[in-house]
């Protein structure tokens, strides 16, 4: 690898040995690093420092050492928000991912006609504004006249109080998450399916394998790297969930914090109540969580491997 890089380097130099050639790449990448330092690195450092202070943004900050962290870890609402977020993440992992995987296999079937039309329909939620669609779902979840209760009422059953019940509200949010992200994950899986050699399936057919056998013995093992990649994406996006819940619950995360996510908790404490030091501690805890997940993802990208 070193050898290759050196040869390539020599080739590049042989083309034109101007000073400009050496400085140009630094100039070209500098906008990113300047913006990164100012709007990302600096705020991260501020957050870390601020998490040790008590500050409302108006009076002087007061140094409190680890007290923000202590209070955070014993805070019941935070525990609730963390649990809710974990529920969303687990639901995405174990409901949305399998759903998307099966959907990708169906959409990839050769006997499916007009496949492009169906694909486009499944992908539309990916580009639809979250705020817009969350308002639509709010109407659909309406207790008495919502679309989702219509079949129950028709059958003479009790309508579900989707957004007012502590358990159902989570189901309502998971349904919205599934609606929004299944198509996106299907795009990834479809890309992965293209890379499975056709011969594997042909050979399996000759050996008399059934559809299910092919799915579990060929498709799943061959898609393993993509499944891993998608899982990490899903975990990261679950941790960030805010828009859907904020709109569906009118900004409350209710009823009684039963649907509140960690980012919503962060927003509420930091922005609404201006407990800036405390919110920075929340951010730092999240940061640590995401950092660990990110290392896993980086490893998947192969960044730590020596060869490209």
């Amino acid at each position, binding site marked *: 690898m070193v050898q290759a*890089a050196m040869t390539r380097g020599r080739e590049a130099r042989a083309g034109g040995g101007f000073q400009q*050639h050496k400085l140009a790449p630094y100039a070209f990448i500098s906008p990113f690093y300047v913006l990164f330092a100012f709007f990302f690195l600096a705020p991260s450092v501020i957050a870390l420092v601020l998490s040790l202070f008590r500050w409302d943004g108006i009076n002087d900050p007061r140094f409190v050492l680890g007290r923000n962290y202590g209070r955070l870890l014993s805070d019941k609402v935070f525990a609730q928000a963390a649990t809710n977020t974990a529920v969303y993440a687990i639901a995405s992992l174990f409901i949305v991912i399998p759903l998307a995987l099966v959907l990708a296999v169906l959409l990839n079937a050769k006997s499916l006609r007009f496949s492009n039309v169906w694909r486009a329909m499944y992908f539309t939620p990916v580009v639809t504004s*979250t705020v*817009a669609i969350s308002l639509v779902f709010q109407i659909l979840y309406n207790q008495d006249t919502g679309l989702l209760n*219509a079949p129950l009422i028709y059958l003479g059953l009790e309508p579900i109080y989707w957004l007012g019940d502590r358990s159902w509200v989570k189901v309502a949010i998971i349904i919205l998450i599934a609606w929004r992200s299944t198509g996106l994950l299907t795009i990834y899986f479809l890309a992965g399916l293209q890379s499975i050699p056709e011969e594997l399936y042909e050979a399996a057919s000759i050996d008399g394998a059934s559809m299910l056998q092919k799915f579990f013995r060929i498709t799943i093992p061959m898609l393993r790297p993509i499944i891993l990649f998608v899982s990490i994406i899903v975990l990261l996006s679950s941790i960030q969930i805010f828009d859907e819940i904020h709109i569906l619950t009118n900004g409350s995360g209710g009823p009684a914090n039963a649907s509140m996510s960690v980012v919503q908790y962060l927003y509420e404490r*930091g922005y609404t109540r201006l407990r800036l030091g405390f919110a920075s501690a929340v951010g730092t805890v999240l940061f640590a969580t995401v950092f660990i997940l990110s290392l896993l*993802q980086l490893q998947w990208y192969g960044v730590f491997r020596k060869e490209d």
Partner: protein
Amino acid sequence: MGERFGQRLGVIALHVVVISGALLTVAPIVFMIYSSFKTTTEIFTLPPWLPPAEWSFKNYETLLTGWAYPYWYINSIIYAAVVTIFVLFFCSLAGFAFAKYYFRGKNLLFIMLIGSTMIPFQLILIPLFILMSRIDWVNHPASMIVPWMAPAFGIFLMRQYIQAVPSELMESARIDGASEFRIYAQIIVPLVRPGLTTLAILTFLGSWNSFIWPLMVLRGNRVITLPVGIATMRSQATASQIPYGEMMAAATLVSVPVILLFLMLQRYFISGLTIGAVKG
């Protein structure tokens, strides 16, 4: 004969499952469009999947005259367009450097770049907001543009596209005495148009649909963006007088143009999403 019949049945079942799922997926969007032409009473009349009895444009009229909606629309377009122009320039330039140059510290800088894509920005939400208020950018368009002008993801994307451009083209231009920037502008940029289109779509869409950040930094009815504006239509209304019809008209106007754009440019959109998954 029996096997043939079984296969036929399988194909039919496949179509039934795929099509009903597809219809279920677009149902909320259809409901939204229908509702935008309905009165509030009609929106809540069962069954909800019926088209409006009478296609009335009243909601749209009220939306455009009674609300600051046109401002929100123009703001959203301006923020998204300006940020997209900067992103295209900065990301292709940096992607070019990472794809075609060998320089000291490149590996470390690249790891930093990739590393930063993994950290969701919500985590620096509060300190970034504090920073904005310190430099007086709260309620200023710059807060919607400047911090987002050079996303690492875009640089990574452009690097993937530019790597595919043959280096010989650059070499011969260099022998002809072209400057490095001219090589970028006249050789690289025209050859990676598909990559730039992809990046433009993803950036525009990201800005267009963003919510939590404009919710925090923008105030004032004539400065906010569409998603924030639509959310305030709901949150500022009293429970008995929520303008559902107008909200659905607002939601339709914010999403339908984007959906149409997506249908036209699907290919670029999907290649942009999957470039990270199918690793090079």
